[in-house]
Structures are given as structure tokens and as C-alpha cells.
């Protein structure tokens, strides 16, 4: 652009050039303006509003009595047994979900990476990916039926198919305290299996083929290759998936709303019920939400520093 301008600028043409650059900035701002408007109105403002609420005793039905209460809500949250039990239950769910949710896809991706026939790979990938095409809430509704004691698919396979247990006394699954959290975790494994496998396959495709060939020349077994080459090079992708899944698993809420069970009350359910229940102490609910989010952030950042690729590795 500047090359087209004459070398000697008269004052008027310089002003014109300046106006032209301003005009070019204006186009850039115009392009991001809708983004900013939506984010400010429905993301930034709501979050700030929740932040403000968390320092008040706001109740939805009695907005006129709202007072600023300082850190009192937060103090209450820190000493709230129900909240900490809720964090504990969310952590329990996360701890059961994460290993299978990550390891099965890694395993499948490594297996599929070895299949030479492109069409077969694409068939496997499509079939495995299909659950990821189903919106989460519909997955929860589906699995709620699948765990049904007398009508569900799981008992159909177990009892009629494999002759384990009996129709007279079938496993109750979701209505059973001990099985509810593992049951939801297995559902989430199913839901994410193809999605995460594709992620890891992209990660594996960045590994140069010569590396494998060199290892085979040196007499490495397939297990050694998977363990020593594929896995370490998958680390960056693993980090992304772990951080991503950690925050969705710790924020498990809709699963409860759709499959609900008395013995499962993660902190998100506590917050939601406080905010939208009869008395609606939204100020306190907001504080619960902030403390929960802060804990998730700390864990995610900790995980990042634990697993980030070493600079020396590159």
C-alpha cells in the first residue's frame, strides 16, 4: 500500500492517507462489533452481574430488600457442608469418568492408526463418531431408558443375552446409590468415544511415518512403539482433552436434571436449586457458583503445569 504513495507527501494528501488508515481500522472494528455486542450483553455482563449478586443478599422475589453484604456469602460457602459434599461428588464423578473417557479413545486411535485401508478406517471412524452427533441432553434421555430395570437395553443384553442375573430380580442401575455415578460415567464414555478418538487420530497423524519405520528397523515391538513413541507425542493433545473434560465433568449438571437421583448432588445442582428454587436466594447461589468455578480453574491450571510439554522436548 505505502509503495503506491508518492514519496513526497503534501500536507493534504498526508491527511487523506491518515483518514484512509482510520477507515481501514473502522472496517476491522465493524467486523468484530457484532461479536463484542453479543459477548458483552450475554457473557460478560451476566458474569459481572453474578459477581455483583454474590456480594448481596438478593432474592429473586424480593428485589427491593437487596443489600450489599460484603464477603458474607463467600464466608458461608466456605463453611457450607452441603457445598463441599457437592464438590466431593463432582470430583468422584470426574475421577471415575476421566480414565475411561481418555484411555479408550487413545487405545482406539492407536489401533486405527495402524489400519492401512483408508476406507475401513473411515467406516470405523464414522460409526464411532455417531454418538458425538447426538446432543448431550438427548444422550442422557436415551441412557435413562437404557438403564431401565424392566425395559432397558442393558438388562436386555445382560439377562436375555448373556443370562447374567434374572428378570425376576433385575439390577436397578440408576435407582441404586452405588451404581448411579459409575452409570453416568459409562454413558459419558459412550458419548465421547468417537469424538475423542478423532482428536487423538489428528494428534497421531502429525507423527512422521519415518519415526515408526526407524523404530521397526531397530526391532521395536508394536507395544514398545505405542508406548514409547505414540503416547509421548500425544501429550499435547492429551493435555487439551484432559483440561476440557475436567471442566465439563466437574460442571456436571444437566445429567442430574435429566437422570436425577437423590444420592447425587454435585455442587452445580446445589447452585441451580438455590438460584431457581422457591425462595431463590440468588445472591448466595452466585457465591456458590464463583467458589465452584474458582476451584475448577485452580485444578485446570494445576493440570496444565503438570502436563505441559517441556521446552527441552522440542
Amino acid at each position, binding site marked *: 500500500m505505502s509503495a503506491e504513495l508518492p514519496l513526497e507527501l503534501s500536507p493534504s494528501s498526508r491527511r487523506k492517507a491518515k483518514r484512509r488508515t482510520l477507515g481501514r481500522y473502522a*472496517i*476491522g*472494528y465493524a*467486523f*468484530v462489533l457484532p*461479536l463484542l455486542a*453479543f*459477548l458483552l*450483553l*450475554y*457473557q460478560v*455482563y*451476566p*458474569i459481572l*452481574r*453474578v459477581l455483583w449478586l454474590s456480594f448481596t443478599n438478593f432474592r429473586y422475589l424480593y428485589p427491593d430488600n437487596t443489600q450489599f453484604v460484603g464477603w458474607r456469602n463467600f464466608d458461608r460457602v466456605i463453611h457450607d457442608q452441603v457445598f463441599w459434599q457437592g464438590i466431593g461428588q463432582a470430583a468422584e464423578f470426574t475421577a471415575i469418568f476421566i480414565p475411561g473417557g481418555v484411555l*479408550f479413545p487413545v487405545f*482406539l486411535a492407536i*489401533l486405527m492408526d495402524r*489400519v492401512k485401508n483408508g476406507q475401513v478406517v473411515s467406516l470405523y471412524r464414522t*460409526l*464411532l463418531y*455417531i*454418538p458425538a*452427533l*447426538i*446432543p*448431550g*441432553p*438427548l444422550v442422557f*434421555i436415551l*441412557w435413562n*431408558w*437404557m438403564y431401565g430395570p424392566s*425395559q432397558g437395553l442393558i438388562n*436386555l443384553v445382560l439377562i*436375555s443375552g448373556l443370562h447374567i442375573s434374572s*428378570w425376576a430380580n433385575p439390577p436397578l442401575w440408576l435407582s441404586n446409590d452405588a451404581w448411579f455415578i459409575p452409570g453416568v460415567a459409562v454413558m459419558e464414555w459412550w458419548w465421547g468415544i*468417537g469424538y475423542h478418538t478423532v482428536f487423538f487420530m*489428528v494428534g497421531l497423524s502429525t507423527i512422521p511415518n519415518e519415526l515408526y519405520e526407524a523404530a521397526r528397523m531397530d526391532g521395536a515391538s*508394536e507395544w514398545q512403539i505405542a508406548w514409547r513413541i505414540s503416547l509421548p507425542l500425544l501429550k499435547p493433545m492429551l493435555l487439551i482433552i484432559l*483440561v476440557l473434560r475436567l*471442566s465439563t465433568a466437574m*460442571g456436571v*449438571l*444437566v445429567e442430574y*436434571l*435429566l437422570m436425577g437421583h437423590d444420592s447425587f448432588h454435585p455442587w*452445580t445442582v446445589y447452585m*441451580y436449586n438455590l*438460584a*431457581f428454587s422457591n425462595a431463590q436466594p*440468588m445472591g448466595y*447461589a*452466585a457465591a456458590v*457458583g464463583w467458589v*465452584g468455578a474458582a476451584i*475448577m*480453574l485452580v485444578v*485446570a491450571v494445576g493440570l496444565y503445569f503438570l502436563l505441559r510439554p517441556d521446552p527441552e522436548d522440542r
Partner: protein
Amino acid sequence: MVTETPAAPASLARPPQPRRALPVGTTARHVVLIFFCVVTMLPLVWVVMMSLKPLQEAYLVPVKFFPTHPTLSAYSFAFSHIPDLPRYFLNSVIATTGGLIGVLVISSLAGYALVWLPFPGRRILLAMLVASLFFPTQITSVIGIYQVDNDLNLLDTLPGLIFPYIAINLVVSTFIMTGVFRSIPKELLEAARADGCTVLRTFGQIVLPLCLNGLVVVGMINFIAMWGEYLLAYTLTSTSASRTLTVGMAEATAGTGVWEWPQISAVFTVMIALPIVLFIALQRWFMKGLMEGALRQ
């Protein structure tokens, strides 16, 4: 394997390897993969089978997997006799279409500006978008979104649902689009500029047609997110004026509903068929889009 034949002389030096049509490892690999594929598909086949059962067969104990007398009556009954169902369906279509158009237009405009249009504050904005991806406040912000809709008198309206749908999906979508736009060669844009193409025309007529794969990725991800969204729809809507099909389904299955099993399965099958058919139709572009930059950040 065929490619190894030219290297035959080398095998003289090594002990001859037995050639098998299917080595044990390969067979085991395929058996495991096929097992996982079958387990993955089983629940969906089961729902479709349930939707084809006549009423009395659905309630047999023990229940059977395949219908003995398959029928489509559950489909016709569900969509003609269940009150509110067509309305819920329409609401879902409107909310998803509105949200999708909004996200596609806004995220491609912003993504393009963030990559190719210079303006002060660009880097800070991009950094803030990336940082916000790791900010786990999606659940907490529901309380605030409810209040915004309340203030704007948008509770229980479709715009009151569409606006937050756009907002909550914008950051990820914009981020994906920046990856896609970055793969456009700089020379192309310079050539367009040299030819006197305005920014808007360059964007609309040259850049966007090249980025269709990326738009398919963003569109698909958002379609899935919005088509089955529950938390906001459940919180922000209360009557059939704006309730979506997902919330309606959840109500129907919660025990308070009057729908019969095959009818619920029929509606469910229709709801999941839409994204699956769409994905299979768009798969080629979707995978290309992922490889082109959507995933490589």
C-alpha cells in the same frame, strides 16, 4: 505389503519371514475395533427398533430387541395426536436456525478481522477470547443470563433463547474460524487488494468460498449444540410459546408425560436422525475442515 516386493534382495540377508494373509495382530485389531463399533451403535439401533414396535409389544416382560410386527404408527401418532409436539418442534427449528445464522455470520466476520484486518487492540482481543475458553463459568453465568432476559422482557420468547445461544457458542466458533482464515495464502489477499477489491468484496466473494469446509465445521458443531440444548431452554422458557423439543421430551420421559414408549422413541429417532444425516452428507467437507486448521491450533 505389495510395496515390499522390490526390496526382495534384502530379504536374502535376513531370515525369510513367513507370509500370512492375516497376521494375528491385524485380526485382533479388527476384532477389537468391530466390537467397539457394535457396542457404540447398539443403543441407537435399539431406539429405532423400539419406535417400530406396536404398543403391546413395547411393554412385554421380558422385552424383545426386534419388533415382531414392525409398524410406523408411532411416528404418525406422535406428530398428529400429541398436543404441543408440532409447536415444540417448530420452536426447536426456529431457535436452531436463528442461532446458527447468527453464529456463522458473526464468527466469520470477527475471525476474518482478527486474522487479516489490522486494528489497535486486535491482539488483546484474541488473547482475551482464548483465555475465556479456560474460564469455567458456563454454569455460573446461567443465573446472569436469566436476569438479562428478565430485564429485557425476553423470558419465554424465542429471541430470548436465540441470543444466548449465539453468545455462548461465539468464542469457540470465532476461534475455529481464525484457524481457518489463517490458512488463506497472503498473496491472494494482496492480489485482490491490488485489483482494487474492497474489504467486504474480498471477504464475501474470495475468502468465504474458500473457507466452506471451515464453515461446515462451525455449522455442524453449533447445530449439535443448539438442536439439543437443554439447560438454557429449561431455565429460560416456561410455555409452549418457546419450549423446545428437548425440554418437551424430557418432560414426557420424566413420568408426568402421557406419551407411550414407541412414540417417545419415534420422536427421539427423528431428533437424532437430523444431525446424523446432516453429518453423513457433509462428512467430506467436515473432515477436510478439521484438517485444514480447525483442529490445528
